[in-house]
């Protein structure tokens, strides 16, 4: 267009447009994914309307589909994972960032990142052959013995179920929570710490007053990112959750997650309404993770000043 520029500007135009295209394609990609799913879910959306998310029946024979059992299973396992991994992940971050000597820090942070590098399917394998028998034979009977008065810990110990799913997820999201908490803590200016110490604070008081208070929204963001990862995690959960679309109060009970039902039934949904219902579950999952991630990123950005990557392996 601007022909009065030097002739190399053609190369410039090409590169600029090419990179622009790639950058825009990322935005396009996410819109396309959402649109694709929305379009394929139309039949289910029209047939069931809002009752889809409140219906607790999943019956391919009678063509009656509801997502509630999957939403329930997903939320219970993810919350369980957060309750376990949240404090531990934060503890790891504090230890690494505020307490550990440099050498220990690099070793341990490497090890924690290694935890994130282990593929989901390997956690599933370990869950089936190590974790589930351990839960069935030792942990669940013990919980039932001492806390059996709570509906949460009643029922027969089977190993495979929401507790196993929650524990596996806790292990898997721990590195995310630890890494992002650490990142936002590292963004806390040292002057904050020095000020607290100068006032005679102990180390813990310094962490509490200067670091945690300053970084709390970022840490919350990290925890929410962990939650997002737990919600969408597929393979390990499919392998240990028990794959049963039901809503039971006990964490020993088998359940089903949204991602797991898609993994199990997506290629075999033999009629359109069935397929469309599965895609709608995917659409709900997409929507939830989208909102959670967007919210969490805003929180992390607000502390760690501008868009920074908190990516792990």
């Amino acid at each position: 267009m601007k022909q009065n520029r030097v002739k190399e500007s053609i190369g410039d135009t090409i590169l600029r447009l090419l990179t622009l295209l790639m950058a825009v394609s990322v935005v396009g990609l996410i819109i396309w994914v959402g649109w694709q799913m929305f379009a394929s879910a139309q039949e289910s959306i029209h047939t069931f309307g809002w009752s889809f998310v409140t219906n607790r029946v999943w019956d391919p024979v009678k063509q009656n589909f509801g997502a509630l059992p999957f939403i329930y299973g997903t939320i219970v396992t993810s919350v369980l994972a957060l309750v376990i991994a949240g404090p531990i992940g934060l503890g790891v971050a504090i230890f690494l960032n505020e307490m550990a000597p440099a050498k220990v820090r690099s070793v341990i942070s490497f090890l924690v990142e290694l935890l994130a590098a282990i593929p989901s399917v390997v956690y599933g394998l370990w869950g089936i052959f190590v974790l589930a028998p351990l839960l069935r034979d030792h942990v669940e009977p013990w919980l039932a013995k001492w806390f059996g008065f709570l509906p949460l810990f009643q029922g027969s110990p089977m190993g495979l179920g929401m507790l196993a799913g929650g524990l596996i997820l806790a292990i898997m999201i721990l590195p995310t929570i630890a890494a992002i908490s650490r990142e936002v803590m590292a963004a806390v200016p040292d002057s904050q710490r020095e000020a607290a110490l100068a006032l005679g604070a102990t180390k813990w008081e310094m962490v509490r007053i200067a670091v945690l208070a300053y970084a709390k929204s970022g840490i919350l963001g990290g925890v929410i990112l962990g939650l997002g990862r737990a919600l969408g995690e597929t393979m390990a959960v499919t392998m240990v959750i028990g794959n049963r679309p039901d809503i039971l109060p006990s964490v020993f009970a088998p359940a089903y997650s949204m991602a797991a039902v898609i993994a199990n039934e997506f290629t075999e949904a033999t009629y359109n309404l069935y397929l469309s219902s599965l895609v709608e579950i995917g659409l709900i999952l997409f929507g939830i993770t989208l909102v959670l991630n967007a919210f969490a990123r805003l929180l992390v950005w607000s502390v760690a000043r501008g868009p920074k990557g908190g990516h792990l392996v």
Partner: protein
Amino acid sequence: MISKKGKLLTGVLAGFLALSLVGCGTTAPSNPNAPTAQAVTLTGAGSTFMQPLLAQQIAEYSKQNANVTINYQGVGSGAGIKQVSDKTIDFGGTDAFMSDEQLAGAKGGKILQLPMTLGAEAISYNIPNAPNELKIAPTTLADIYLGKITNWNDPAIAADNPGLTLPNLKISVTHRSDGSGTTSIFTHFLSAISPEWDSKVGKGTSVNWPVGVGGKGNASVAGLVQQTPGAIGYIELAYALQNNLHHALIKNKDGNWVAPSLDSASAAAAAFQVPDDMRVNIVNAPGAKAYPIAGFSWALVYQQQSDKAKGTALLNFLNWAIHDGQSLAPAMQYAPLPTNLVSREEAMLKTVTYQGQPLLK
């Protein structure tokens, strides 16, 4: 130094551009008419019920026909039906024959359903220290799967097994989590003997289970039974035998206690006339020796093939499988197909065409 790296990166970029062009080319439907001189790869998917036998048949067949590779993925009968209907695979496997509605939805025209084998479904259980061949009456089985009987020491189970003391152990019901022909056979049986099951749950490749834990594929259910004390599950007999799982005796329509075996499955099949379209259910068969939870497993093939080389290879393999390939069946406790059925199937295979020409000579 820098310019060297620069060249490398520019090369990577150029490579990417070239690849993205190639990529656009491959996303378009590929050339079905290209004469693939020798090597042919067939993709099949579906039933895990017949997978142990089919896997051995494929292994044996490829020893004699090195140019043909057959990739069969056990993803469940529901997936076999779905993927063959969508034409994403070359043939499907199912133990629940396709309904008229499903046939009408197939993208590639008429689908032929060929019985590939005949098998019995074992009711396997894992009760520590209990003997093999526990007797389980059909109504008891239905009540276990309805969640009405929840402990192995239930009087209903004890009544059929006098002299045997079963432990106070919770029954862990296992079933399939994927769309399954094995489930279809099992639920057809339960619907046949229990009106309550029929009205509450019904029959099909995927049902709304009242109780239990789900596993994907026959293998996975066998794994669940093996790993969970107190578990019960329905699996194709070969899986029970390969893994030394106990199986129950089931009372048949004539009132006899029968074990799952190739003979009792054959006896069940003999009680029925197989119609021209080969679609037949053989659950709860009459006959003194008939095992009540048995069924055929079908291969799903389009009558009009769209690729000559693939179509020819597929028909040759299927024809071999229903003839010579049957010799592998008994060792794995699958019943060989009855001879009169084999000749009818061969006639059926001869109706498969490519551009109007039959492929099997």
